[in-house]
């Protein structure tokens, strides 16, 4: 009983921490996005409040929080109010399953830098993130507005369509690593690039053993599909301003609007994290294994706890670097590419990405069957 309650407590703390981390990351991302877009579009962006406009975050937060909380007259209030809250849940729950570093060992306890470790992590993440469609639908329906409803329908159709390509592109990766477990995937990607076939081993000293080298097509499809899943440009038909004002969150303002923001950024973060874990070695450092890092840390200090802490921190840093890079790519793409037309969006999802992902799956299965 005692052991269980300790576990539960730690798990709760971890979940709260991860949630806070996500929520706190959002203002930074908003700032990056605004500055970055200005940079891309050759403007200044927010630069008045604080150094480099960094305090703009606070100002925005204050503004959001102090705005009047209103609902349209004919809105269906339970749904209208519940939608923003629900927006946070799927992304947070899914993000909690991401392993961000090697486990921390303090004494006899092992703390995973991860909300929870699940053997079928990938399936779970897909399942939870698919719940995001409800948020959009609730918001769209609850607002009692044509634009909202149209946006919601578009968005949910899009999410469902791209989920197929997304899921199928991951199947190749799962076949490759032979596990649903994210941590095991990361471990499998350590060390130099190594091909094993028919008893021969070919390895490269320059390239890390990352998924992208095995599954380039899956990587491309997965990355594109995560854009669609998080409703970001060039797939943001759900909020195409020129057509339907702002889509499902047309009627939202103030703090509720902010929650949708957080949800959207949460999806973005989740996409980036999964991208890293599947194709870019997770928290691993190219050219160096976890053991190497631990050995290096042992040269600095003798305490096992300190060695563990240093190792965990170094890998966390590695993870964060990659993470930020991918988040930047998300922002970069948003301000660079134009929006698709709706039929083009559906054609791309159903007629291009789905068949390619399917082909990739079959090819991978065939190759694995043949060389093993």
């Amino acid at each position, binding site marked *: 009983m005692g052991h269980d309650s300790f576990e539960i407590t730690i798990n709760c703390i971890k979940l709260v921490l991860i949630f806070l981390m996500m929520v706190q990351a959002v203002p930074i991302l908003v700032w990056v996005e605004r500055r970055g877009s200005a940079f891309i579009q050759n403007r200044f962006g927010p630069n008045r409040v604080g150094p480099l406009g960094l305090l703009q975050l606070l100002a925005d937060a204050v503004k959001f929080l102090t705005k009047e909380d209103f609902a349209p007259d004919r809105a269906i209030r339970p749904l209208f109010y519940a939608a923003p809250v629900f927006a946070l849940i799927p992304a947070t729950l899914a993000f909690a399953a991401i392993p961000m570093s090697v486990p921390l060992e303090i004494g006899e306890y092992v703390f995973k830098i991860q909300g929870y470790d699940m*053997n079928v992590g990938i399936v779970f993440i897909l399942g939870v993130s698919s719940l995001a469609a409800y948020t959009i639908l609730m918001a769209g329906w609850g607002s009692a507005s044509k634009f909202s409803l149209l946006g*919601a329908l578009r968005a949910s159709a899009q999410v469902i369509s791209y989920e197929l390509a997304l899921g199928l592109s991951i199947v190749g990766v799962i076949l490759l690593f032979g596990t649903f477990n994210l941590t095991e995937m990361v471990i499998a990607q350590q060390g130099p690039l190594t091909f094993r076939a028919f008893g021969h081993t070919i390895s490269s000293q320059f390239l890390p053993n990352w998924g992208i080298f095995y599954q380039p097509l899956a990587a491309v499809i997965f990355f594109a599909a995560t854009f669609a899943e998080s409703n970001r440009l060039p797939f943001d038909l759900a909020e195409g301003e020129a057509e339907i004002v702002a889509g499902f969150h047309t009627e939202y303002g103030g703090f509720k609007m902010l929650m949708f923001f957080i949800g959207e950024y949460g999806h973005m973060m989740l996409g980036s994290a999964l991208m890293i874990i599947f194709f870019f070695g997770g928290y691993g450092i190219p050219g160096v294994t976890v053991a190497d890092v631990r050995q290096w840390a042992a040269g600095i200090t003798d305490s096992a706890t300190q060695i563990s802490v240093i190792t965990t921190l170094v890998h966390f840093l590695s993870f964060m670097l990659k993470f930020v890079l991918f988040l930047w790519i998300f922002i970069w793409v948003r301000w660079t590419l134009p929006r698709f037309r709706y039929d083009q969006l559906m054609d791309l999802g159903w007629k291009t990405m789905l068949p390619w992902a399917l082909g990739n799956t079959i090819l991978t299965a065939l190759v694995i069957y043949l060389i093993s």
Partner: protein
Amino acid sequence: MTPDVFLFWFLALLIVGSGLAVLLFTNPVYSALSLAMTMVGVAAIFITLNAYFIAGVQLIVYAGAVMVLFVMVIMLFDIKSEVQAFTSGKISGAMKLIAVGLLSGLIVGGIIMGQKSFVGELSKDAAAQVAEANSAKMKRAAGADAATKELGVALFTKHIFGFEALGVLLTAIAVGTVALARSRGGTHAK
């Protein structure tokens, strides 16, 4: 009360409550959302029963796809609240209620009474197994992974015919659904 027990009662209440909500809400949108909630609860129940993979599939297929479809269709129809959500007819209504009540009573009664027979034997075995599972709690994770593999092996060897038959069924369904969706109101169309 152990966390497992707490979890079971919590989820059971959630499932039954949201299930009743499906039945009782007159607004179909609420019904659909309650159903989605039920689905999530059932997925959680699956997790408590160590069926992780099935839980994930339940989330993806049911909660993620099927229910979204339902909600979308309801929203497309633009039905807000129904004047007559329930069937009229006192006699048939009473008969229906009686049938349902009797059925629930019979099933539950049957389960409890049947302890001495099949279910009872099963429970004894099950108790031993639960004890075994509890003692080997640390190994549970590895066991679950193996279960997923076992599931796949069984699916593609022992139940391959059913799998293929379902594939055919799904193909037929896909064609039929597209045909239905493209029609302008069935055989009455001009």
